[in-house]
């Protein structure tokens, strides 16, 4: 099982002292968090992509390329890459380039983006969100798999004798996850191609995850990629820890109460019971995380959100130390012991390359 960090890349004032990091501070903090992820033995770092304040990461492959140069082992990913408003040709090129630079340590998670105004800024319309995700990804797949592409669709200018360069590393396209909170069409898309499905699993009730993952697994089997329990599932999670759970609650509450997404709404207690958010001791995080497989099945990737809502970098790094030392080693052991042998691990460049060699 892969464990990692995913970050939204928000610039949010620290509600306890009003301090607002500069964009440069935040970008640097994201890189520090990624390097820390490798240092503490995590497997994945995934960055969001946004094109509006208060977010900074508009150019994921620039950031991930920089991180790739400073890491050896860490798998670089996105959460999410906007398949609706990005040109699929540019995604094909950017991520193939990143693959080469990172020695294959790359996959990506596609999402639609839910910010209405972003669509027209890129010449699109949010009401076509699903249609854009379907058409753009169908083209992206061909660009990575066919050396010369002739193509015509609804949303982008046609292609005639087009070759996306560089070609994917070793002829193996990056593995793709499709992320969605509650659109069954996206679970269907992931299942159709036999790609991974990632349930955001933060800020929303677990029932959404359960329904979406259930649908994806059932359709994965329907399309003949394997049995339902062999489908490739990733989940998010949001945690805040201190040695004593009361300290965790006390310290996190002002960040919770003022958080951009859910602040000034439900209480911390309501939100932790209604969503997968866990605020408490490392043991509580371990216990809660182990329950995820009870409704999502045996899954392949667990990403944690630890750095939003204005938490200072120092605190975030302390959270990561606890993850690396106390939480993830136990989760690795426990999940491994529970997972049946026929459930595969998440595909990597190496496993896909070997599979391709065997197939040819």
């Amino acid at each position, binding site marked *: 099982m892969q464990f990692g960090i995913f970050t939204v890349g928000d610039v949010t004032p620290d509600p306890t002292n009003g301090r607002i990091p500069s964009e440069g501070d935040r970008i640097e903090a994201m890189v520090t968090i990624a390097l820390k992820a490798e240092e503490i033995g995590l497997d994945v770092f995934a960055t969001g992509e946004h094109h509006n304040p208060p977010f900074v990461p508009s150019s994921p492959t620039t950031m991930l390329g920089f991180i790739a140069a400073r890491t050896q082992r860490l798998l670089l990913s996105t959460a999410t890459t906007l398949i609706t408003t990005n040109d699929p040709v540019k995604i094909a090129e950017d991520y193939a380039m990143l693959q080469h630079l990172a020695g294959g340590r790359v996959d990506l998670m596609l999402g639609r983006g839910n910010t209405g105004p972003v669509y027209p800024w890129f010449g699109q319309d949010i009401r076509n969100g699903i249609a854009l995700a379907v058409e753009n990804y169908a083209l992206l797949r061909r660009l990575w798999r066919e050396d010369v592409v002739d193509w015509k669709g609804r949303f982008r200018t046609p292609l005639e004798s087009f070759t996306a360069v560089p070609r994917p590393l070793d002829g193996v396209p990056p593995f793709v996850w499709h992320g969605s909170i509650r659109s069954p069409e996206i679970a269907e898309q992931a299942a159709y191609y036999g790609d991974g499905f990632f349930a955001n699993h933060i800020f929303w009730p677990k029932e*959404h995850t359960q329904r979406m993952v259930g649908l994806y697994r059932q359709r994965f089997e329907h399309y003949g990629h394997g049995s339902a329990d062999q489908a490739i599932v990733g989940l998010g999670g949001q945690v805040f820890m201190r040695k004593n759970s009361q300290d965790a609650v006390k310290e996190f509450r002002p960040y919770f109460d003022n958080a951009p997404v859910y602040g000034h709404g439900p209480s911390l207690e309501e939100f932790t019971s209604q969503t997968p958010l866990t605020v408490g001791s490392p043991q509580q995080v371990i216990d809660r995380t182990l329950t995820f497989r009870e409704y999502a099945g045996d899954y392949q990737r667990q990403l944690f959100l630890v750095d939003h809502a204005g938490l200072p970098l120092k605190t975030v790094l302390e959270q990561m130390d606890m993850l690396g030392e106390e939480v993830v080693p136990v989760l690795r052991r426990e999940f491994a012991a529970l997972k049946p042998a026929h459930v595969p691990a998440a595909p990597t460049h190496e496993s896909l390359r070997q599979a391709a060699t065997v197939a040819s």
Partner: protein
Amino acid sequence: MTGRTLAVVSAGLRQPSSTRLLADRLTAAAVDELSSRGFTVTTSVVELRDHAHDITNHMLTGFPSPSLQSVLSSIVGADGLIAVSPIFTASVSGLFKSFADVLEDGSLAGKPVLIAATGGTARHSLALDHAMRPLMAYMRAVVMPTGVYAAPEDWSRSAPESSSAALNRRIHQAAAELAEEMARRESKPRVDPFELSTTFEDLLRGDSL
């Protein structure tokens, strides 16, 4: 005997509430009308005040608490709805509008709805038709032609020309209209938002989008 489910939403804030009082009278009249047509009626009454925090939280987080979810499900699944709001500042109450805002798209589509309101003066009675009726029309509800507005004098037996008798007439008129619409429609199963309504081949072809 065939069954029908009737949901009742009351947005009154006080205790006791004239809005709830009107809701109860409408409910009793609608149940009578449906029973006389041979239906057994299951009613569920929601006081929005009990869910005021959860309604706000839903607006902020995008999802309902478990108790609000069961309220929403009972309304979506009902064969008919009686919606009663106080009139505040020339419109339905903010709480009522917030509740309407968190109902999922299509929740009331094709559903017979009886609209009713209370207010501090009879001069606000047109708010039913300039605020509540268009709101329900937008939600594609089938709104009954008779809306029921109750002003303070309507509760008084001593009022001249017994306006309470007139209120009673309107209640029975509206309840009969609602019962008629509920009686002639088959009970519909609710649509599951997580259900896949298309195949991927259709999505790829650009159909059904």
